[in-house]
């Protein structure tokens, strides 16, 4: 059964309510151990791969060297033949035959190292994908368990603090009311601000002698004087 299916079955079966683990702790530990083993194999495979690739490079160098040497000796044979020294030419040709045998050996070794390197690279890639997949599955199990444990911690906290969980609608009402209050305050603030600016405008008008003026002592006296007449 896939991990997905296991989790689904466990949740549906009410394992969460009974406080049961989705997959028993022992199985989780085994799974974790499997992942660690796979990771160890992966490290080893990578190390092997480095070794093989080093051998491959050494073989390649040897092939290059032998090829150069063969070409060089072929030149010598030509020179010996030009001089008519058949015996020397034959001796050099023997040397070339030996070199060619070594070259064939090295070529074979090189091919074999290349093959191993390819296989190891493929293996490393495959193992890496497998480890990633196992980790994803383990993460699903652990996350489900973690959320269940977190939920029980939250529920316990609510129960112990005696705080009543409101219904969603009531919560929304309260939040909206607070938001309304906040908005009203903002509006009131803006209103007050604009009123203040009104007053300051009036003050400016007054200073400029525009609009109604305050009753000053002088104007009162003038009024009273006029009455007496």
């Amino acid at each position: 059964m896939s991990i997905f299916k296991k989790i689904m079955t466990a949740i549906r079966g009410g394992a969460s309510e009974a406080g049961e683990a989705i997959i028993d702790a022992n199985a989780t530990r085994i799974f974790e151990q499997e992942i660690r083993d796979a990771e160890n194999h992966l490290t080893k495979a990578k190390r092997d791969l480095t070794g093989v690739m080093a051998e491959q490079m050494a073989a390649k160098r040897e092939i290059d060297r032998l090829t150069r040497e063969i070409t060089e000796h072929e030149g010598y044979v030509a020179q010996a033949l030009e001089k008519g020294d058949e015996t020397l030419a034959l001796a050099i040709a023997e040397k070339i035959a030996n070199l060619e045998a070594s070259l064939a050996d090295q070529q074979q070794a090189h091919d074999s190292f290349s093959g191993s390197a390819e296989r190891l690279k493929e293996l490393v890639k495959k193992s890496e994908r497998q480890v990633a997949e196992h980790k994803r599955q383990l993460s699903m199990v652990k996350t489900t368990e973690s959320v269940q444990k977190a939920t029980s911690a939250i529920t316990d906290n609510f129960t112990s603090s005696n705080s009543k969980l409101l219904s969603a609608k009531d919560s929304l009402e309260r939040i909206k009311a607070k938001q309304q209050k906040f908005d009203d305050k903002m509006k009131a603030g803006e209103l007050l601000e604009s009123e203040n600016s009104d007053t300051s405008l009036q003050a400016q008008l007054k200073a400029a002698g525009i609009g109604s003026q305050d009753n000053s002592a002088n104007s009162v006296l003038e009024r009273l004087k006029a009455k007496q007449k």
Partner: protein
Amino acid sequence: MNIHTIADHLNSLADNSDTGMSFDCQPISGEVDVLQISILEREELPIFVSVTEDQIICISYLWDVDEVKPDCINDMHESMLEMNIPMPLSSFSKIGDKYVVFGALSINSSFADVEHELAVLSNNAIEVIDDMSDFLL
């Protein structure tokens, strides 16, 4: 990244958060550490944060199964499924008999990402309750 570093960060923001929200953090102890985050003016809908090996999970509880009008439950489920992708950053889920919205972040997220996640989650939760209230008792 653990719930304590998240709490320290959010508390240090005070009134200067980028999101304009003011966070109050309260750790809840249990088998798994959980951080209860209340947002000023929205205390009724706290967000619960827990950190696993590879994820930061932020959950806001929406409503109980028994708050749903019985003959509306299928329509509600369908609406929730349809809303799941359009809703930014958050998804719906059900834990026990409670419907939730949640967001999961990589453990390598920045504090700014976490803060943004919490703000969006809170906005989503409020909007979802408002929009789905026809389905609720």
